[in-house]
Structure formats: C-alpha cells, structure tokens
C-alpha cells in the first residue's frame, strides 16, 4: 500500500487587518498564492459571499494550469450563538458590526493536503503538538 506522508505542512495565520484594505482580486490572489504553495491558511474573520465565489472561480482557473493542484477546501468556523443569552448575542452582534466578522475563522487549504489529513488526522495532531 502506498505510504502517505505530510511533508513540510505549514499553517499561515492571516489577521483580518492584513487583508481588509485589499480589493477582492488582491485578497483572493494573496490567499490562493499561499494555498498553491501548499499552505493551510487561517484567516481571522470570514470572506464575503462574492469573495468566496471569486475564490472558487480563480481556483478552478488554476486547477488546469498548475501541476498537481486540484483545488482547495474551504471552511468557515463561526462561534455558536444558539445557546447564548440575549446580552451575549447582542454584544457579539455589535462587535460584528464594528470590527467585521472577527469571531469567525476561515480555513483554506489545498485539497490534496486536506485529503491526507482526513486520511490520518493523527499526523496533524502530532505536528501541532511539536
């Protein structure tokens, strides 16, 4: 059986302040450049719906042109407000209006790498523990 390993896995955290002044094209370009370089990108906040669509469009345009690049995985993690009390929800809502979706995290990674991690999650746990 073919042995799979995650070589040189790197995570890159991008604070929202680093991309907030960029245009949609620049923002997507920056994120995709990191994904193509086999990095898992964690963005503070979440992209707008049209930025996500643009990210998918640009990813597809690259799939056929970059060797071994088959696309990306995208996930948004948002704080669960369902069981929170009214004041917590209101505080979160005000903070969201003032500083954007800072409570959310967007995770983007090359699909080949994410597939490896899904196959053996212990590998990433080991890497993160070190």
């Amino acid at each position: 059986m073919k042995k799979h390993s995650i070589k040189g896995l790197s995570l890159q955290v991008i604070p929202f302040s680093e991309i907030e002044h960029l245009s949609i094209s620049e923002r997507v370009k920056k994120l995709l450049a990191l994904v193509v370089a086999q990095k898992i990108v964690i963005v503070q906040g979440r992209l707008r719906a049209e930025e996500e669509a643009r990210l998918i469009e640009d990813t597809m345009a690259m799939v056929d042109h970059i060797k071994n690049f088959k696309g990306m995985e995208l996930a948004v993690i948002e704080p669960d407000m369902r069981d929170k009390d009214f004041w917590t929800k209101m505080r979160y809502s005000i903070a969201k209006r003032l500083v954007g979706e800072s409570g959310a995290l967007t995770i983007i990674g090359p699909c080949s790498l994410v597939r490896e991690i899904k196959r053996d999650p212990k590998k990433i746990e080991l890497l993160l523990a070190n």
Partner: protein
Amino acid sequence: MLRILKNISRKLLSTFFGRKEEIRIGFYGPPNAGKTSLANRICKDWTGAEIGQVSKVPHETRHVQFKEKVEIKHKGKTLTFKIVDTPGIATKIDYEDFLRFGVKRGAAKKRAKEATQGIIESIQWLEDMEAVVVVLDASENPYSQVNITIIGNLVARKIPLLLVANKIDLKKADIKKVQAAFPEYPVVGISAREGLHMEEFYEALFALAKKV
C-alpha cells in the same frame, strides 16, 4: 447597473403590454444533486423534450444548458420560464475521482478540465438569473461550504431562491436536516427521478416567481 436597467425595461414592457416575459430561473447546486434530473422532469412535463443527459458520474453537466419558453400551468395560472441548468459547483476537481466510475484516464482528464470551466461558467451566469432553485441531495450533509457560498451569493445579489431537497426516495434522505441548515428559506422535498412531490414543487416555484 446593466442588470438593473434590463430589469426596469422588462417591468415597463410588461406594464405597457400587459404580459409577463419569461422568467429566467437557474438550477444551482453541488455536483450530482440532481439539477439536470429536475430540469429534465420539468422540461419533459411541459415541452416533451429533456434538457440534458444525466449520469452517476459527477460533473456530467459541464456547460450551462437552457430551454426557453417553458410554459408551466399550475392551479389555473400559467407562467413562462427560461430554464437554465448549470454545472455543479465544487471547490476541487480531481480526475482520479472519475476513474472509480470506470471512466478511462484520458476521458477522466478531459472531463476534469471541462468541469473546471463549467464551474466558472456557472458562477458567471449567476448574475443573469432572476430566481434560483438550489438543488441539494437530501441524503448528503447540507452543511457544506459550497452550499453556504451559493446561498450567500444569491442573498448578496438579492436573487430570490427556493431550496429543493432532492432524492427523498433514498433511505438516507433527511429533509429536516436541510430545513435545519437553512431555516430562513422555503424547502421542498422531492424526487426528480421518481417524480415525487412535483405538485408541491410547482406550488413553491410559482410562489418563487411572485418574488421576481
């Protein structure tokens, strides 16, 4: 801007001439959710001809395909639609996934290449839609980022939408999961393949057309 002008001129025309032009309705969703099966069912019911081929292999639809002047009658009312069936939207395409379905390597690579173009085409056509039916596979997890991105884009563009939980004939299908994932939107459970609950679908489609 151009879209706004087009919409105004369409509304003026229908006001002056007392007729509603055809409504452009897009069928969007992830691959293999049954968009073409549903579009085929509608087109076959009302025009006698199907719109495209269906297959178990994902990304069978790799170009936007449409049928104009589809006249649908429901409870004494008639509406005319332009049915736009779009390729499934995904964030990744791996030709090796097609090999598992018995597709030859060369054909799989070609299919993957066309599928990437199809996804781009789907997203670009979104701008032209007046209403959208988002087709989801009721037997799959609805909380996928692609589903959220599609619905988020429709909301951002103020395009009215209807959610269809397809494949309810399957044992694993769970329409409640789809409703729980997107509680703000109407959800109709159907089986496009078996023709189940199509009356409810047409009812919801006419309600959607009212929002245009």
